[in-house]
């Protein structure tokens, strides 16, 4: 079986991909998807730690409860965020972040 390091590396790389997407992309929906990718990278490291640090011979279920809450909150966040994007699109007819600059400076 792969070691804990391998899982942490994959989780960190997923987070880095998400980070790159958030910083480099200019489409607000892609930025939002990259945020989801970052959340999932964090989830993977939580699950890996829960499996590698056994408590009484079983995985640490506190960590998995935390992952469960993260997934729930992320689902709520996606719903609200996409509603905001739709409202923004109605007002401005664009999803390009550089066109949305009325709060710039």
């Amino acid at each position, binding site marked *: 079986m792969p070691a804990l390091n391998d899982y942490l590396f994959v989780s960190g790389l997923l987070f880095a*991909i998400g980070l790159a997407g958030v910083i480099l992309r200019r489409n607000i929906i892609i930025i939002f998807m990259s945020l989801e990718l970052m959340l999932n990278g964090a989830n993977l490291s939580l699950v890996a730690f829960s499996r590698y640090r056994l408590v009484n011979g079983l*995985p640490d279920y506190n960590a998995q409860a935390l992952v469960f809450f993260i997934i729930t*909150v992320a689902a709520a966040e996606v719903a*609200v965020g996409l509603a905001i994007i739709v409202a923004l699109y109605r007002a401005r007819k664009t999803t390009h972040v550089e066109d949305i600059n009325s709060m710039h400076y």
Partner: protein
Amino acid sequence: MPTLLFYLFALIALLFGAGVIVNRNPVSSALCLVMSFVGLAALFIQLDAFLIGIVQILVYAGAVMVLFLFIIMLLDLRSEKRRRINRLAWIGGAGVTAAFVFLLLAALQNFQGERFPALRPDIAATLRAENLPADAASTDSALIALTAGRLPDVHLTGEVLFTRFVLPLQIVGALLLVATVGVVVLSKRRLT
């Protein structure tokens, strides 16, 4: 074999994850994201987190992705037109990401990763039998599964959620309700 599967699914998660940010068409990005989540769910299941893996498929690859695709098609987004890129911002962003990956490599190099520990359902079974009242032990399905050497993952996760994390669970339920109401309010055409 588990190592091979790990590399396969890690590769799926990472390559399709990269596809999300490389694709110009939002629909292909969303579909890449689905595949990335599926690969990640397989990694969760390989880590014996069966409930989390299934929830990942149901919530992310199911509900969240349908929502994303629905919004992309509702707004009728086409492929982005190429624009003049802000070179300074691009270099800065790539630099931040490269610095993060470098830090990750440096941190993991000094980290002594542990070997994959074998699950010990027998230890958990004896502990559980001690804490249960004598008459409940014969009907406790988690104890029966643990004694048989299986991992009753859903039962144990649910037990933690509904005993130690009852209050957060209620708060998250309220949060979902608030989010639903908030989305309806936001989606109204006229905010008065």
